[in-house]
């Protein structure tokens, strides 16, 4: 079958052509292999880059992430000006290991105490904006088993290369073609079952982001400080929608980082994740006046388990609290002279 002869599938909504964006804003990490050039260009532009590793009990993988990223991208090529772990209160040796290999370690709850404390990855990312000093912030999940410098330079590269790009998202595996012709691209289960259908319905241009929930991304402080951060599951979705709404698709880019090996989550856990993401999504739809809801959304996710032949309901409270744009926090404005 000739793919070119395939008619485009009608969506019933105005045509969205993302081909130009895909061509100009989709990269492969190998486009940025010349780290020496990136460092020179970074210095020429007077930029600083900070790496934030959000953690919660990641002793199995945090050590190798810091060792490799520090050795390759701070000691050998000074692309990173700062490497920091922002921790949610690990009870294992995560913080000890991170500190032993030279990362700055922050316990999220010890900082911005006047703003209160919530537990969640988004909370750490938000506080990282206050704690870290870089003009560019790179966020890399700390459960990656096959860490490689590409996870950082592949994301920072587009920002250094092109001043119009504000935010770069990771995806994994070559998406567009392979030796056998065309093939569908795939995100994770939550992406394909929840996010892509929702984007198709309400933000069709964002469907071009191949893995909107990937945990690795980099952005300029100038935009990250302006957007709210959900503290929980919805932080990645919210970031994408909020930056897109403010700056448009051309401020976004994505980079293929080839392959990522990490813990696989059980479907039941993904269900809770989907609930949190959905709440965030709906809040964005309401803000954008794309839908009207009569009542507030409930925050209880119900799942079931069976024991001794009896079914039991388990209620999970998933609130998806949002942090205000950090630019609105006085301590932040004071620290960064805003």
């Amino acid at each position, binding site marked *: 079958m000739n793919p070119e002869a395939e008619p485009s599938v009608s969506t019933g909504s105005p045509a969205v052509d993302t081909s130009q964006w895909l061509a100009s804003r989709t990269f492969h990490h190998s486009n940025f292999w010349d780290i020496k050039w990136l460092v020179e260009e970074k210095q020429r532009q007077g930029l600083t880059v900070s790496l934030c590793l959000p953690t919660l009990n990641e*002793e*199995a*993988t945090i*050590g*190798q992430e*810091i*060792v*490799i990223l*520090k*050795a*390759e991208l701070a*000691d*050998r090529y000074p692309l990173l000006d700062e490497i920091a772990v922002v921790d949610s209160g690990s009870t294992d*040796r995560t913080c*000890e*290991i991170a500190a*032993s*290999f*030279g990362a700055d370690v922050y316990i999220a709850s010890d900082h911005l105490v006047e703003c209160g404390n919530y537990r969640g990855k988004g909370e750490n990312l938000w506080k990282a904006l206050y704690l870290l000093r870089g003009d560019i912030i790179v966020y890399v999940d700390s459960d990656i*088993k*096959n*860490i*490689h410098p590409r996870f950082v330079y592949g994301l920072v590269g587009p920002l250094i290369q092109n001043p119009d790009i504000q935010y770069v998202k990771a995806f994994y595996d070559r998406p567009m073609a392979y030796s056998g012709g065309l093939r569908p691209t795939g995100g994770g289960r939550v992406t394909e079952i929840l996010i892509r259908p929702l984007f198709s319905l309400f933000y069709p241009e964002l469907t071009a982001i191949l893995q909107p929930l990937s945990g690795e991304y980099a952005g300029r402080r100038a935009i990250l400080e302006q957007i709210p951060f959900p503290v929980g599951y919805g932080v990645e979705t919210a970031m994408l929608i909020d930056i897109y709404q403010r700056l448009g698709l051309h401020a976004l880019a994505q980079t293929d980082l080839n392959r990522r*090996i990490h813990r696989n989550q059980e479907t039941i856990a993904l269900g809770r994740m989907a609930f949190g993401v959905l709440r965030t999504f709906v809040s964005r739809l309401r803000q954008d006046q794309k839908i009207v809801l009569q009542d507030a959304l409930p925050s209880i996710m119900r799942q079931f388990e069976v024991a001794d032949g009896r079914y039991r309901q388990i209620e999970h409270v998933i609130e998806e609290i949002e942090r205000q744009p950090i630019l609105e926090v006085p301590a932040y404005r004071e620290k960064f002279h805003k």
Partner: protein
Amino acid sequence: MNASLLEEGVLESLPETLLPLRERLLANLVMLSQIPAPSGEEAERVRFLLDRFTEAHMSDAAADEAGNAVGRLPGTTGERTILLVSHLDTIVSALEPHEVRVEADRVIAPAVGDNALGAAIVSLVPAVLDHLGIRLQSDLFLVGSTRSLERGNHAGIRFFLDHLPQPVHAGICVEGIQLGRLNFFSIGTARADITCSVRDTSEASRSYGSENALVVLNHIINRILAISTPSRPYTLIRMGKLRAGVAYDVEPDQAELGLEIISHSDEMIERICGQIDDIVAEMSARHTVDAAFDVFFSTKAGGIPFSHPLVKCVLDVMARLGIEPDQGHSPSELSELIARDIPAVTLGMTRGKRGSKHEPDYVLIGPLLTGVAQLVGTILAIDSGVCDES
């Protein structure tokens, strides 16, 4: 500068001086450990080493015809040639997950001590010398060798030594574990597979009733166990691998035994190999199976004497760094150097443990830089000429 590093107090503080390179060493170690490299499939590790050599301005770094990663740091005089070699292959299947875990005090990964660490250190040597401001008089060859293990039979290092146009004056084989390991003689080794295949039923001789391949192999094993081995010269037959069968209710058509014979006497190895060959031939005929004895790996016994200046130098360096020497024989690349009359030693770089079914391999981070300091001290000693035989 070079000589001053060997002065009293300076060598002893070398591990501390090398501290700024610790993360780079660990990064090399982690990245190499993540790359599967069974014998014959080392290309990605070779590329890693060559990238490191090229970044260190070793402009002629390249893979040779045997696939070895070879880099050369030209010396100021080139009067001597020193070889640093680390094998790149491992016994771990590429299908196994090559996951690495870095803890505060150790690195855990498949084959991390044998020999990702050796390769990581060889890849870092240019940076170490640069960091210490060392410019050697001797040419220094850095080699990541291929096909050392199993059926590889040291093919990579053999090729390199047989084709290097300049003579090598001294060699150091770099192994990950154990710190203190000092090998300067090689025990003779023969490694072999015995395969046993039941003949196809269509063949006439099957009518005599070929036996279960596993049972026949068991007969062979019993006969091998009956071979007497002398304690002097030290000789041992070690059976290490056995493979046969697919299910409880299916008699296997194929069985395979892997064994090695080690001895301080090459003649003894030859004699035992002859005996096993006879046993296999006899059992093959008696039980109507196709059995074969295939010696695919052999090294000669030999070495340099304990009184050799190279050994004395290494012991001195170890003593000054507080390393307890553990002297013994080695079947490693060392045997290839010794077979070519090149004075050589095998050195271990840190403490650690080979993995087992229940526990993965690990190497300790703490002693690592002491291991590297030991290597630097040995290179400098060789370079200064004090290891030359009078």
